[in-house]
């Protein structure tokens, strides 16, 4: 790959990454969530717009590592070995992000952060298998032998990818099957945010691979990557801080019960912080205000004032957003170092 194409790849990547993080922030602040959930705050499900694309991108990265392994064995070209190790490395980083974001979400929506759920455990095993890939590489001094053995290992390790995915189908998993989640995802409002997030996150992951396997771009572009990386981290963490602000400044309460008038406005509210009766009915912070005749605000976290009830996004969503910004921004910020490191291993 020429230096010219390296420059082009990195330029496109920088543009896409900015769009990616902005889209993630918009999804967290604007996208819809389930009308009613069994456990926890329905807004915790906003994590779906970041956690799932992150998980799918990690599967995509491990698939690229498999392709690299196969191509190296078929063609014997060192560039395919580079594709495998860069993809496996990014796959591990994305995989760790998937586990962390999933744990934060599960702590609210499943009742515990770690549940030994079959897919959860499957992803953990997958990560261990790919961390083993790098340990294996380090243990073989002869470069050609290292590439050969590592390629074979990358092909075999890929078995953990379909296994971790199929775990939710083969067993009774806390993760939903596609058929169970389909009703939610087929809603046009959800589809719009979810599909765009999946596509853009996948493009980001593939471009990160391309940028790390290509020749080093010009020093100006390398510096630009570091600046954009720093900006992504700052913007992402600021947005996460904004989302989590009510937990820092106010004392959000869980809505246990609510009484609405015929206009769907809240008249009385029972929360974990106490009971409230409003002289002037206030607008429900959730639209639609009713679910099967029950106020849909029940279960949500809110901040109550004299004349308003404000919805609070669960803190796990802010954490999920922060983790994603740290991953993508961090890789760009450390671009030069990672580029060098991944040439060596």
């Amino acid at each position, binding site marked *: 790959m020429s230096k010219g194409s390296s420059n082009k790849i990195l330029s496109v990547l920088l543009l896409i990454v900015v769009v990616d993080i902005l889209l993630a922030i918009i999804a967290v602040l604007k996208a819809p969530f389930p009308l009613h959930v069994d456990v926890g705050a329905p807004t915790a499900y906003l994590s779906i717009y970041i956690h799932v694309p992150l998980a799918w991108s990690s599967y995509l990265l491990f698939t690229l590592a498999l392709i690299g392994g196969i191509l190296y064995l078929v063609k014997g070209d060192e560039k395919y070995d580079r594709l495998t190790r860069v993809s496996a490395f990014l796959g591990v980083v994305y995989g760790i992000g998937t586990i962390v974001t999933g744990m934060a979400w599960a702590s609210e929506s499943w009742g515990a952060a770690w549940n030994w759920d079959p897919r959860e455990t499957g992803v953990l095993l997958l990560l261990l298998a790919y961390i083993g890939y790098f340990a294996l590489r380090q243990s073989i001094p002869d470069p050609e032998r290292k590439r050969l053995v590592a390629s074979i290992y990358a092909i075999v390790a890929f078995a953990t990818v379909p296994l971790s995915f199929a775990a939710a189908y083969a067993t009774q998993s806390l993760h939903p099957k596609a058929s169970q989640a389909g*009703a939610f995802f087929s809603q046009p409002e959800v589809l719009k945010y979810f599909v765009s997030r999946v596509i853009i996150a996948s493009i980001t992951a593939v471009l990160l691979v391309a940028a790390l396997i290509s020749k080093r771009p010009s020093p100006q572009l390398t510096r630009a990557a570091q600046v954009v990386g720093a900006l992504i981290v700052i913007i992402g963490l600021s947005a996460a801080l904004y989302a989590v602000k009510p937990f820092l400044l106010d004392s959000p309460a869980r809505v246990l019960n609510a009484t609405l008038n015929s206009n769907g406005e809240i008249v009385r509210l029972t929360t974990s912080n106490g009971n409230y009766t409003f002289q002037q009915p206030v607008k429900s912070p959730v639209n639609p205000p009713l679910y099967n005749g029950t106020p849909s605000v029940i279960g949500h976290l809110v901040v109550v004032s004299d004349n308003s009830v404000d919805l609070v996004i669960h803190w796990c969503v802010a954490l999920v957003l922060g983790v994603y910004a740290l991953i993508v921004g961090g890789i760009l910020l450390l671009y030069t170092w990672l580029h060098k490191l991944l040439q060596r291993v």
Partner: protein
Amino acid sequence: MKQQINARDKKKLLISALLFAVVLVAIGYMSLSQSNYKSVADLADVKKRVKVTVEGNVTPIGEGVYRLIVGGKTYIVEAHRSYGVAYTDDGHTYGVFLLSSGNFTVLALYDAGSNLSAYQMGSGLAGQVVVAGVYDPNVRAKLVWNGGSVELPFLQVDSILKGCHSSYQQGVASRG
């Protein structure tokens, strides 16, 4: 002397690796499909105090006020069909529900003030749930009401692990 591997050998290695991966997937899938959460009915065979994760169906506990006695401790339970709220003299609050599978039913009790929110005490408890906790076959729970009582095996619940499957089938909401 360094031994070179030719293209033909590399292809053999590739085919072996692919076959090995396919076999791993097949064995892994078979083993996964045989593994599930233990049923709460399996607790009938437990002989000593153990940490367990079991699944079962939430069975209606009825409505009204009961007295609950577990290991010498007494609770007053306000039952609301699928769950109850248990109070002790010191003002502590617990969630109570019945978990069944087949003919086996345990009384499950969890501390509502610790790791579980008040919200989970109510509407979250319905249908099939997975719970993690401690089961001791020597501890029994006695539910007493006017004119009767029943003794049940007892499960101290640490966490209620509930899948999110049904949440995706309830329509969507947005900020109002």
